């Protein structure tokens, strides 16, 4: 990959930062909010979006997170004005833009495949939107330079897209979009065409760029790690519906349903019921499973208990009060070892932090588990 030679890594960190700050100052706009109200959309007979309601705060970095087919890209494209006309309203800065053509919306979009025009040089690609807006020539020049500065691609102005690596094309696509100072920045799976190492670097660059410009940004991805690391808030989508909305940590810790619990990381999901006893509320797993006291405020009835693998502790030899089980298998993950522990017919995944030299349990070892009530979330069905 040519990206290892990119100026970002070579240049002095602080001068680079200063140059970017001054470049960003030339391209800044006041941040706006986005409101989406009761948005529905169908491809023929199939309903792809079903009554989406959400607001993105000014300057927020927001993610649509979901598996393929969840409608996240369709929603993003609807904001940009592509695809079949939706029902409902899309407001940018309080103004309904849902009836406008894509070129009247002032919404910048970076495409998954970058969509750089192969017949135009890098500089011409970046200048394109400004030319369309009849910006004076001198200003076009400053803004193109500023945009290329912001993505550290100034030297590549006269190259053609086919002469650039994937990461460089990505930067040019960003520069082309921000050069026109759009009110909103939409990123459609921008990292999916990059290899793993570059993806981590680019997502930091995108975050820095967004912070420097302060532009309201929506990022579409199916990768929860991407969304978690750079976004202020995420909307988890599935089946054309927003399943949950909140900060990454909040959504991870308090999944609203089984889908969200499974989609964001690994979770033990145990079917059972809750019952009120003299000591408080307890959970009783189905079958010959275990009993567990829960926090107050949980509803009674049938449902699923959600516990993350790192929310379970191994406390040693089996004793009367704790839950006892048998190690069935072990996966070494590096920072932790993930055991599958059998409790009757049930199997629980348990992560044990790994440090150098720590001995591992073997299959067949008997042990006892402890689960703190606050580590368990009960979702009524």
């Amino acid at each position, binding site marked *: 990959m040519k990206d290892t030679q990119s100026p970002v890594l070579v240049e002095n960190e602080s001068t680079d930062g200063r140059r970017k700050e001054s470049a960003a100052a030339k391209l800044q706009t006041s941040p706006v909010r986005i409101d989406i109200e009761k948005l529905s959309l169908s491809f023929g007979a199939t309903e792809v979006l079903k009554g989406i309601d959400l607001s993105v705060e000014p300057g927020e970095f927001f993610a649509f997170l979901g598996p393929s087919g969840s409608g996240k890209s369709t929603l993003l494209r609807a904001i*940009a*004005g*592509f695809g079949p006309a939706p029902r409902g309203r899309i407001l940018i800065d309080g103004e309904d833009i849902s009836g406008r*053509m*894509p*070129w009247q*919306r*002032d*919404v*910048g*979009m970076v*495409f*998954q*495949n970058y*969509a*750089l*025009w*192969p*017949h135009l040089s890098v500089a011409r690609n970046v200048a*394109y*939107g400004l030319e*369309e*807006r009849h910006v004076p020539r001198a200003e076009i020049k400053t803004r193109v330079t500023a945009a290329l500065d912001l993505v550290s691609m100034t030297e590549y102005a006269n190259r053609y897209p*086919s002469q650039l690596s994937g990461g460089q094309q990505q930067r040019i*696509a960003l520069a*082309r*979009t921000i050069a*026109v100072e*759009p009110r909103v920045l939409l990123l459609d799976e921008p990292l999916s065409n990059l290899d793993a190492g570059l993806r981590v670097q680019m997502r930091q660059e995108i975050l820095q760029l967004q912070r420097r410009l302060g532009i309201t940004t929506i990022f579409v991805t199916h990768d929860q790690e991407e969304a978690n690391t750079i976004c202020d808030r995420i909307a988890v989508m599935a089946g054309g519906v927003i399943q949950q909305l909140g900060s990454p940590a909040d959504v991870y810790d308090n999944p609203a349903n089984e889908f969200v619990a499974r989609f964001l990381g690994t979770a033990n999901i145990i079917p059972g019921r809750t019952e009120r006893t003299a000591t408080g509320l307890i959970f009783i797993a189905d079958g010959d499973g275990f009993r567990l006291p829960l926090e107050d405020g949980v509803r009674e009835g049938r449902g699923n208990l959600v516990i993350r693998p790192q929310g379970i502790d191994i406390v040693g030899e089996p004793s009367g009060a704790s839950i006892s089980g048998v190690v069935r298998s072990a996966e070494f993950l590096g920072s932790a070892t993930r055991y599958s522990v059998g409790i009757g017919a049930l199997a629980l995944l348990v992560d044990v932090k790994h440090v150098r030299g720590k001995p591992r349990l073997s299959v067949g070892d008997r042990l006892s588990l402890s689960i703190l009530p606050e580590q368990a979330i009960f979702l009524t069905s």
Partner: protein
Amino acid sequence: MNSSRVASYGLKLPSLRPYAVYIVIALFLIVFLAFPVLKVIYVAFQDTHTGSLTLVNFHDFFSNSLFRESFCNSLYVACVSVCLASAFALPLAYFTSRFNFSGSVVIQTLSFIPLLMPPFIGAVALRLLLGTNGSVNLLLRSHFGFTIPFMEGLNGVILVDSIHYFPFILINLSASLSNIDRSMEEAAQTLGSSGFRLFRKIVFPLSMPGFIAGASLVFVKVFDDLGTPLLLSVNKMLPPQAYLRITSIGISDPMGYVISCILVAFSVFAMWVSFLGMRGKDYATVQKGGGGLSKRDLRPMESAACYVVVLLILVIVLAPHVALLLLSFGTVWSFGVLPNGYTLAHYHQAFTTAFGFIVNTILYAGLAALIDVLIGTAIAYIGQRSDIIGRKWLDYLATAALGIPGIVIGIGYLRAFNNVNMPFSDQTMASWWGVIVIALAVRRLPYALRSCVAGLQQVPVSLEEASQNIGATSLRTIWRIVAPLMSGGLVAAFVTSFATAAVELSATLMLVSKQEDGPISYGIYLYMQVVSGRGAGAALGIIAVIIVGLATFLSHQLVAGARRKMA
């Protein structure tokens, strides 16, 4: 079983066999392509009396006002035809790629029809429709008192050729357009671009390589076309001049060779332009799952307007075919909007006195196509799967035939093989019917070769390796695995060769030494020249179109069937 498997381990395709095949094909191409063409070029630079190399022939050519005029006319006709063909193709390509337009299927189907028929077949018929005293002008004169000189002189050649060759632009342009990813356009829209500006700045430049490829092909085809000007009695153009010089003055007259040189030079030049247009511009931007520009629905008024444009173009495009059909069924058609009466007599004549032409056509085109498939497969296999030094050179040599006009091949064969006597007969090789087959095979080989190469590319090497791993020899593997899997490509190769060879005229016209040896295109040419023979000529033309159309249809069915089976 066991012993044969053991025996085959050491054999690993005897290393001499591909070399032998290579040498045989190379000899064939050198003798029947390189040598005659080089001979023509050499003679053009040779002094007729002393035999030394000179430029005097070119000086003579350009100091003759008739030749100067012919040269300018040819250039003018080719350029204007490209413009007119573009005018037909651009709207059709644009409508079908941009709009959800129910006429798209009609356009795509009907616009291929001209390719089934070479232009010279419809030329005379079109004159009856659009000529000075043709149907349209008779109507115009009686109702409005004026006429339009559609078919006057060079106009006729331009009109006939652009009607027949515009699909080349349409096909290439449509392919280019459908290779543009939707995001290319959407990115421009989010940046504030729309409508015609977006088309001009993004869509059109991206489809340029396809347009240039199509346009340069049309230029070459028109520039080299011999049949159309001859049948329309437009002799002041380069190919007819070459033909007339060689047939009336003789094969020692240098002017035919000078003209041949110019034709080759322009063909090569046009192909070079096309290559420059494509080089480094692999604009195919479609991503996985994506596909072409976004299409939008038309409003009723727009739809109506599109239909009017499309119908107008299709009427023009189908005019030669309609006229030919009328002519083939008409009794007498002269100074009338329509023929005076209708009859089947011309078809009767075509199947009796002219039947020999039909038989010859099927024989010649069939043999030529067979040769092309065999050679094409061998070249493709050697090029892709062997490690012979210079394995790509056969491909380059065979493909070079694209740049050689038919009339040049014809003149070259006459000159090169005139002194070679065929064994067991008193004929020279140049007058033997087999040489027509070889000329057809050489001329169509580039097309057949591309189909063979494409067919072989669809067979992953691993499938062959798997077969060899289990113990089949290379030849057995080719026979049992490769050939069945590339059968679609082979059928396509055979049919392309057959269909285009069946209606070839320019080389054929030079090489047919007696009437009994002539194929259908020669027959049409003979009959169309005399007024009384036009009906039969038209009937032969319709038969030719049916043969070619049927072959094309069958191949589509076969290829589609094979593809279904493998999917």
